[in-house]
């Protein structure tokens, strides 16, 4: 149409762009070759700086060029006065800034910047902090910048208080940014540490507890403020996980003390079993066994070859050392690295003996939550319940309530907890298996508590929809276990920690693997009716349980195997009562 502006066609534009690109590529390649030639010729001059500058400003991720640049700068530095060096590196900072505009997430740029600041005679940290703030305001999740900022803060000695205000500001502008919350969690214990406890806690058997234990805790006054901050965030947006994670950190319990939680000795087997508060690698932990005042040369092994780190370790005593039932023995296991030990006395006439801290004493299962006063936790539970009333379907809220209930009174809240788990599985079906496993864990904890209150060595948890087994190290002393009518798929290697187990009932599950039934020295009877054991090879580990005489395998696919009877009697010659 007349008067209309004529515009180049797309094809024309593309052709032009293509040519432009080709030209650029040619220039880039020839400059690159020139630089690499210079470098191999060992030339460290201004020209090298210029050439690398050209290349890096279009591609700041060319790490070799940054390296070359550093070589050149170090060379130039030697021949210059101090204020000239300052200028040289200042212009380098300007150049990096330009490169960061091309790619704000360039590893090379940020690294080079840190390096330049170490070379600068008078680094201007305020300026660097300003740069970080600017970058973070453009992209608050640029982890390169976060990392660099940490360096700057450390070097320039910015006060923790100022940094906390910095997180205030970032959280204020976007409370979904977990980087800021996390940073806050590292600052608070420095600024408001929990006062050290006056006397050593009396539940602790060893007076030489590690001094680091309470270091990441925050004093209560500040904690209350932080709870409020987290409330504001999750009441505003209950679906945002950042605040919930932070909240859980706030409620978090102290790390469990590193200790030997149980020593068990069996006269008949001449064997010592040791349980630790966390999985360890016994050979490298400096363990020492002293029997009646004599250090013993023993070989530690874990309960299952697949467990290289394990909370339970075994060793055999020298033959004949404890086998005489009329003798009394005193046994001590030293954990030299942690300056802790545990004694165990084996009295005359006793076939076995143990010494331990029970889970009940240690309040082991007050979930991952808190050492806080229960009144504080009670108040937090109320807040969460208030939110749940408004948002009955909110998974974060439900989960947090469950954790709070466990911290307060795991047995008293069991019924409500189970109901909340049911809701969780419905509102968040994608994670229903996670919830099932978590629920299993809590049920096992509760059962352990009940068992200890009853002072028995029988663990019974049937018909509770268990999907996984855990805390098996706590079951070291259990003799009878009933896991029938659950949804277990396997008896994992950790099951081999049940060193005292005599009778196992696990009917009506979906167990396919019996890996954990491995070298259980006292196991006599196993009932695995209606499970999913398919192959003869799945039963091989049972052969290592030398006392096994009764085995019930009815209702398993394995019975279809040809010659199953003869094969089994060959595999397990000691089993006298076999049901197929």
């Amino acid at each position: 149409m007349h008067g209309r502006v004529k515009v180049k066609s797309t094809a024309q534009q593309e052709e032009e762009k293509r040519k432009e690109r080709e030209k650029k590529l040619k220039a880039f390649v020839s400059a690159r070759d020139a630089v690499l030639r210079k470098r191999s010729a060992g030339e460290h001059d201004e020209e090298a700086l210029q050439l690398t500058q050209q290349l890096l400003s279009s591609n700041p991720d060319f790490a070799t060029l940054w390296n070359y640049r550093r070589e050149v700068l170090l060379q130039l530095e030697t021949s210059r006065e101090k204020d000239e060096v300052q200028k040289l590196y200042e212009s380098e900072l300007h150049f990096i800034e330009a490169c960061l505009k091309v790619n704000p997430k360039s590893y090379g740029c940020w690294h080079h910047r840190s390096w330049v600041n170490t070379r600068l005679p008078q680094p201007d940290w305020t300026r660097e902090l300003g740069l970080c703030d600017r970058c973070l305001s453009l992209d608050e999740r640029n982890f390169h910048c976060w990392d660099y900022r940490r360096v700057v803060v450390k070097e320039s000695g910015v006060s923790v208080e100022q940094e906390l205000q910095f997180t205030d500001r970032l959280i204020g502008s976007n409370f979904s940014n977990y980087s800021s919350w996390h940073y806050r969690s590292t600052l608070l214990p420095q600024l408001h540490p929990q006062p050290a406890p006056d006397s050593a806690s009396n539940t602790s058997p060893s007076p030489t507890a590690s001094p680091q234990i309470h270091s990441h805790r925050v004093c209560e006054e500040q904690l209350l403020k932080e709870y409020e901050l987290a409330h504001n965030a999750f009441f505003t947006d209950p679906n945002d996980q950042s605040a919930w994670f932070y909240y859980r950190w706030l409620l978090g319990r102290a790390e469990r003390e590193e200790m030997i939680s149980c020593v068990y000795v069996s006269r008949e087997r001449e064997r010592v079993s040791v349980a630790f508060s966390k999985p360890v690698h016994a050979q490298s932990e400096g363990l020492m066994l002293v029997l009646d005042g004599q250090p013993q040369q023993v070989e530690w092994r874990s309960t299952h070859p697949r467990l290289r780190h394990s909370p339970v370790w075994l060793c055999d005593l020298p033959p004949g050392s404890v086998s005489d039932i009329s003798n009394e023995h005193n046994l001590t296991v030293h954990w030299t690295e942690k300056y802790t030990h545990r004694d165990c006395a084996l009295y005359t006439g006793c076939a076995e003996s143990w010494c331990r801290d029970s889970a009940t004493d240690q309040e082991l299962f007050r979930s991952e939550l808190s050492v806080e006063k229960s009144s504080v936790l009670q108040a937090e539970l109320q807040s969460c319940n208030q939110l749940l009333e408004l948002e009955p379907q909110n998974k974060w809220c439900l989960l947090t309530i469950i954790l709070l209930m466990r911290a307060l009174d795991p047995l008293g809240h069991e019924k409500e907890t189970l109901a909340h788990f049911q809701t969780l599985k419905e509102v968040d079906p994608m994670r229903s298996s996670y919830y099932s496993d978590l629920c299993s864990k809590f049920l096992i904890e509760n059962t352990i508590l009940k068992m200890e209150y009853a002072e028995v060595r029988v663990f019974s948890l049937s018909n509770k929809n268990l999907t996984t087994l855990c805390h098996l190290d706590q079951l070291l002393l259990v003799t009878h276990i009933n896991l029938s009518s659950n949804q277990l798929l396997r008896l994992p290697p950790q099951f081999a920690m049940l060193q005292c187990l005599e009778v196992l009932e696990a009917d009506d599950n979906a167990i396919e693997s019996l890996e954990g039934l491995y070298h259980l020295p006292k196991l006599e009877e196993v009932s695995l009716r209606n499970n999913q054991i398919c192959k003869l090879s799945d039963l091989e580990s049972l052969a290592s349980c030398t006392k096994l005489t009764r085995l019930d395998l009815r209702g398993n696919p394995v019975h279809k195997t040809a010659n199953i009877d003869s094969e089994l009697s060959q595999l397990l010659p000691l089993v006298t009562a076999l049901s197929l």
Partner: protein
Amino acid sequence: WQWLLVTMLSVCVHFPGLTESVIAAACSRVGQSVLHLDRRNYYAGNWASFTFNGLLSWIEEYKQKVQITESEQVWRSLIDEGEDVVPLSSVDSSISNLEVFCYARLALILLTTNTEHEVSEPEEEQHTSDISEPSQSQEEKDSQPISSPADPPVEVEKKITYQKLVKEGRRFNIDLVSKLMYSRGALVDLLIKSNVSRYAEFKNIGHILTCRNGKVEQVPCSRADVFASKQLTVVEKRMLMKFLTFCLDFEQHPEEYQDYTEKPFREFLKNKKLTENLQDFVLHSIAMVTQQTLTEEGLKATQHFLRCLGRYGNTPFLFPLYGLGEIPQCFCRMCAVFGGIYCLRHSVQCLVVDKASNKVKAVIDTRGQKISCSHFVVEDSYIRDEQRQSTAYRQISRAVLITDRSVLPSESDQQISLVTIPPLESSAPAVRMVELCSSSMTCMPGTYLVHLTCSSSGTAQEDLAPVVSELFHVSTIPGEEPSEVLWVMYFNMRDTSALDSSSYSLPSNVHVCTGPDGSLGSDCSIKLAESVFHHILPDEEFCPPAPNPEDIIYDGDGPQAEGPGFDESVNTEAEEEESNQE
């Protein structure tokens, strides 16, 4: 000028306000020749931005009510057989009740155009208009530190005097209308779509405030605000967020509000269990509707507000640097780039109508030239009463203040704030206030430019003075104590936005554009522009993206032609301006 006479114009645009500029740009963009005439010596009419000194001249001009004498004889002779004449009004009566008060240091300077009001002032002596008398203040300023050494000199220095305002007058860009741009409103969409946005820069509005019980406080509207709010309980936070989330896609949940479609929005808010606090926030500051507004409209307004959040920051609004007057100018620039011609101080006296077709075929300008055109776009204020079917205007009450501190001092003093002030009595209209900081390039450093707007129930002063005295410290005894407010102007502006083509008896190719409306956004003007454009050119696209200068092919040149496309048109414009002066 010769050139124009021989050219058949497609569209003649008269009085370039926002709507007219957009129409002109859109027409010029698709190849129509456009002539833009304005009787003033500044762009944009009631959409204009003035420097402080420019505004003072505008006030003078208003006072004198300059009448352009009509010379009927001149155009009579140009009318041919079969042609009829529709004269245009030469007096702009869209502004009324203009009042100016100055509280800047030393002397109360009262400029008033309305003699009745002067009588009500208690002290006759104070009425000296001292604008042109700088010596007195200057003297005082110099002598002050000497005569009273007890006073900290810094304090004295800090107070801004009237001459300082005049001296720094060029730093002000004072808009006659006060609007903000909704981040997802029709105007922003158009600026982006047409690439006109490249001609301007924008600043995000930093604070959304309200005034309750005489206290200015932040309105929690974004997620971050709700989180940070200290006034709300956590349960209120949840209720508010829940409600706002619902509003975002309220159409998907008709069951939630269908019982309330015929009832006021306020009742719906009550039903949603929002506390009084929250109801106020939503009604006045987020939806910005009245007590009487029905539920669905309220929901739509809330939704619009929310959809604009987060696009350019934590509030839904943008403001153009250098003032709102930039926007019509940007479209004028686009129009010029594509060949539009601009003439200021040049007006149309009358339209020449072809009797047979009842269509405008030409216009006659104030110099007696007859210019042919096929469409004529004009602002409402040029239409004489004889051509009107209805004269049902509304009025907008406006106040412009220059202050020296923010209504809500915060850590950053360079924030633009929107303050919604619920009516003091239920019958009064809600007042909207925009406080501009100096980094918005609308006022000198150390000052704030404050715009107040509401739909009129009386004169602007009657409507807005109570709000001004509630929010600001205004000295009652002039000069005795420092006043936050340095200068105030009140005026009423006609709001013709309710009129449409049926309100006028004019030929069908005359397109009347209404002036600025009282709402916060500019959607109304943009929609009108689009509809007029489609009326003129039904088959053309409205403001397609402008090509990059390097992609434009010039006749005779190859595609490699150097230089941007503007140069030529800018020259043309300048030449026309020159010839116009002759």
